[in-house]
């Protein structure tokens, strides 16, 4: 007798024994026959790709046997199957190099989340109520096909809108292909705090519209203008690995890190030299450094594209003499002189721009200035400098195109959460309330899919074919493709398979080049693009113009700075309990929103730690507890992004506030990207401290709230 047959027999006999012994059907334990060979207690490792951000780290998944509650053919019972236990970095992956960040570690909780959407849902209650009724896959797909057929019959395909989040995988190709064959506009890639300004600058300066890979490991001096290299920007695991090597990887040579920003990020916290500047003037400092280098002939002046994009470069950057730069940026002229000399002395040196530095009305200027500085330092495509990964896939996001949604008759949402991430002033919520039909592939009822008429839940990454070709993080092109690590826990389906099925069931079927999700993941990514021809900078991006801020400076005296945290990123991992309870690296706050205020400012306004303060912009008011934070400029108020979801599972719903909500819909002048650091606010103490600010530090007492009545 085969082993499998033996197991089947014993399973059947034990099941019938159980059936016979229990009168009450609720107490029946149906044990299904496992359909995979398992060895109890022995761990296996299978590859996959981390879904937490676009960096595309390859992971090793530890898989072991477990008993899983499941439904088979309408009958609930228990099946023994192999399940994921832990995610670890894949040592052979040039991106993760064996490491994995907090969000990556916690991603396993996406699969096991108690509030996952377990089967297709159809809206029952009002839009946004989250009141859904389960439907079968056949019915759900039939409904979507019907809607598409109706729109096609009316010749109205232009009114179908796809909204996705940025990813570097074949799934983006599938959705783009599906939309194009349907006759619908190209998918809207929603990434409100994305990097399109930096990509545009790289296209102008170097002919590559993508983020650069920074060769930190071989650099001796890294100067970051706002880019949170070690925390949340671009490819933090790869960059942290490079940072470790830069610091202590070479005997007798320790690389130096300087960070230019107005509120200390994790990267700033690790800097040897933290250089606070006035918001919106970062590029002026970069050109001030270039001026010193050129004026003192410390390096041969460059004449490439990057330099040509800057007005006044050939004239020796006369407008950017240290004394003038000091006036604009607030950084002392002496310090600019010294930093410029160090950049040359400590070559290979490299400059990086990102984050709030480019999220101003004049953002493109700052990125172009940093590119020109890199060119001058000889840091382009040189060891210890910046590289452009051949074939790296870079999605182009544009928050403004969300406005085209108001005319859409059918909106298809793939993992994007614009109702949460877009400023309230863009009225995305109102658009979704009015949209005739909304379909979501979400695994969770989040702020956006709460408005959906139909939810067709996707498998999670551990249950499906995954692939990625990251935009940067490694000098060489990296493509990772991996199969499912475990069988699906719920009645979900891979979105790729659903789209392929929908394509075939239409009245006029669409021919897609792939037959299954597996075939899609294994299909080759487009090869490397040759560098584009030089692109002239649009408008006046090559010249410094004063940053424009929304809100009158007299009425709204503070700059408002939303920032990503290593636990929540853009807010898409706020539903994971480990990350909610992980102390924030710089403040140790857990389960909370908070408002960072400089100690002198707080004293002047008589605000104490934990007091509730009202933050008011021209577009709304938020109330959150104050965090007295020593590493922020006195005229800047900062708030973490991630909390403040209306609907996002039991762990994140209704918790804290969302700083993106009160942003002005200001844009970067040249690219139209959301200028998320260009809003001004006022603050006022609203109430005494309640217990909404929860911190790990200083709370480790035996009786922290003794005497209080709970």
């Amino acid at each position, binding site marked *: 007798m085969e082993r499998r047959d033996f197991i089947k027999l014993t399973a059947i006999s034990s099941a019938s024994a159980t059936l016979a012994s229990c009168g009450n059907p609720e107490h029946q334990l149906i044990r299904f026959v496992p359909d995979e060979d398992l060895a109890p207690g022995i761990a296996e490792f299978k590859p996959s790709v981390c879904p937490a951000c676009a960096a595309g780290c390859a992971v090793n998944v530890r898989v072991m046997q477990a008993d899983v509650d499941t439904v088979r053919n309408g009958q609930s019972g228990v099946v023994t199957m192999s399940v994921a236990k832990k995610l670890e970095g894949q040592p052979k992956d040039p991106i993760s190099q064996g490491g994995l960040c*907090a969000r990556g570690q916690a991603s396993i909780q996406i699969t096991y989340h108690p509030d996952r959407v377990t089967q297709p849902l159809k809206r029952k209650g009002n839009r946004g109520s989250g009141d859904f009724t389960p439907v079968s896959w056949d019915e759900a797909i039939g409904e979507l096909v019907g809607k598409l057929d109706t729109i096609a019959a009316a010749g109205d395909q232009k009114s179908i809108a796809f909204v996705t989040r940025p990813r570097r995988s074949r799934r983006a190709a599938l959705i783009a292909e599906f939309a194009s064959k349907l006759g619908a506009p190209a998918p809207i890639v929603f990434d409100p705090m994305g990097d399109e300004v930096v990509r545009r600058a790289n296209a102008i300066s170097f002919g590559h519209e993508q983020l650069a890979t920074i060769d930190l490991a071989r650099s001796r001096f890294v100067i970051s203008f706002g880019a949170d290299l070690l925390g949340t920007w671009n490819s933090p695991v790869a960059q942290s690995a490079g940072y470790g090597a830069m610091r202590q990887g070479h005997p007798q040579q320790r690389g130096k890190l300087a960070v230019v920003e107005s509120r200390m990020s994790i990267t700033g916290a690790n800097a040897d030299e933290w250089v606070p500047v006035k918001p919106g003037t970062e590029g002026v400092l970069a050109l001030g450094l270039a001026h010193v280098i050129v004026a003192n002939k410390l390096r041969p002046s460059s004449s490439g594209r990057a330099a040509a994009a800057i007005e006044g470069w050939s004239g020796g950057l006369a407008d950017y003499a240290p004394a003038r730069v000091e006036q604009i940026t607030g950084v002392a002229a002496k310090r600019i002189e010294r930093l410029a000399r160090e950049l040359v002395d400590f070559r290979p040196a490299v400059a990086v721009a990102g984050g709030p530095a480019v999220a101003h009305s004049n953002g493109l200027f700052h990125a172009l200035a940093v590119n020109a500085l890199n060119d001058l330092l000889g840091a382009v495509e040189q060891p210890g400098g910046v590289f452009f990964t051949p074939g790296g896939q870079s999605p182009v996001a544009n928050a403004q195109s969300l406005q085209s949604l108001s005319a859409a008759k059918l909106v298809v949402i793939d993992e994007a959460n614009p109702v949460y991430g877009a400023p309230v002033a863009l009225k995305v919520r109102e658009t979704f309330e009015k949209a005739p039909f909304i379909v979501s592939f979400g695994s969770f009822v989040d702020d956006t899919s709460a408005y959906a008429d139909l939810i067709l839940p996707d498998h999670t990454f551990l249950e499906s074919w995954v692939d990625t070709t990251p935009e940067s993080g490694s000098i060489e092109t990296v493509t990772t493709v991996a199969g499912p690590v475990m069988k699906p826990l719920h009645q979900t389906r891979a979105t790729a398979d659903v789209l392929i099925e929908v394509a075939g069931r239409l009245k006029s079927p669409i021919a897609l080049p792939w037959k299954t999700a597996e075939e899609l993941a294994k299909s080759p990514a487009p090869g490397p693009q040759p560098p584009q021809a030089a692109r002239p900078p649009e408008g006046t991006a090559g010249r410094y113009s004063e940053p424009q801020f929304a809100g009158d400076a007299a009425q709204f005296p503070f700059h408002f700075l939303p920032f990503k945290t290593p636990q929540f990123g853009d807010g898409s991992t706020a539903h994971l309990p480990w990350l909610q309870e992980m102390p924030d690296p710089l403040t140790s706050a857990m389960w909370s929103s908070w408002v960072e205020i400089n100690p002198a400012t707080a004293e002047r306004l008589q605000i104490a730690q934990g007091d509730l303060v009202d933050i008011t912009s021209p577009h709304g008011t938020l109330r959150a507890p104050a965090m007295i934070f020593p590493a922020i400029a006195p005229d800047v108020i900062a708030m973490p992004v991630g909390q403040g979801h209306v609907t996002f599972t039991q762990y994140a719903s209704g918790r804290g506030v969302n700083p993106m909500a009160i942003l002005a819909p200001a844009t970067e002048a040249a690219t139209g990207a959301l200028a998320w650091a260009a809003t001004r606010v006022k603050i006022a103490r609203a109430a005494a401290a309640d217990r909404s600010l929860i911190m790990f530090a200083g709370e480790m007492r035996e009786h922290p709230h003794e005497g209080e009545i709970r």
Partner: protein
Amino acid sequence: MAHRWGMAVDLDKCTGCGACVTACHAENNIPIVGPAEAARGRAMHWLRVERYFEGEFPDVRVKFRPVMCQHCDAAPCEPVCPTYASHHTDEGLNAQVYNRCIGTRYCANACPYNVRFFDFFNPQWPKPLHLQLNPDVSVREVGVMEKCTFCVQRINAAEIAAKAEKRELKDGDVQTACAQACAARAIVFGDLNDPESEVARLSRSPRAGHLLEDLGTLPKVAYLERQTQV
């Protein structure tokens, strides 16, 4: 020769990102306690990243320090335990036997590093979150004290594997979850009795010191101080 497990943390590499904190939760079945209990100081993090601000704006500097059980050779938590739940193993680990622990919490009072955590409640994992639990690590129930074990389950697994293959353990065979997750490679784990091991080499560094070492606790976690370059 017996192993003597130890750790070295290079504070010049540590970025404070917190990957180790989450990796520790994932490996060791550490429950979350929720916002209400976290506000009462009952959040459990066997490993935490301490951060210290120095100076005032604009001359602010930050120091990060991941702190876990220091596995002291003269551990203050051990002699105070009435049930020998907190004890020293042959390989130098400061171990906790959950089944012996009666929850006096004397050990937590005695520990100068604040790294011991008491289970005030039975842990809860709403289904199917329980499927993530690591079968190699016991789940602690209400009334016992828990703390960093240096991932003893990984040490045991590596020792068993080496024995089965009739070979000696080599440096790098055992990696704790925190060391494995660390992208910057700031945390290194290994055998201090092997003078060639990376952890032993780092522990001999002129930058290396121990946390509160003047208390005489003889900790086995070496911290390599952050360098300054201005």
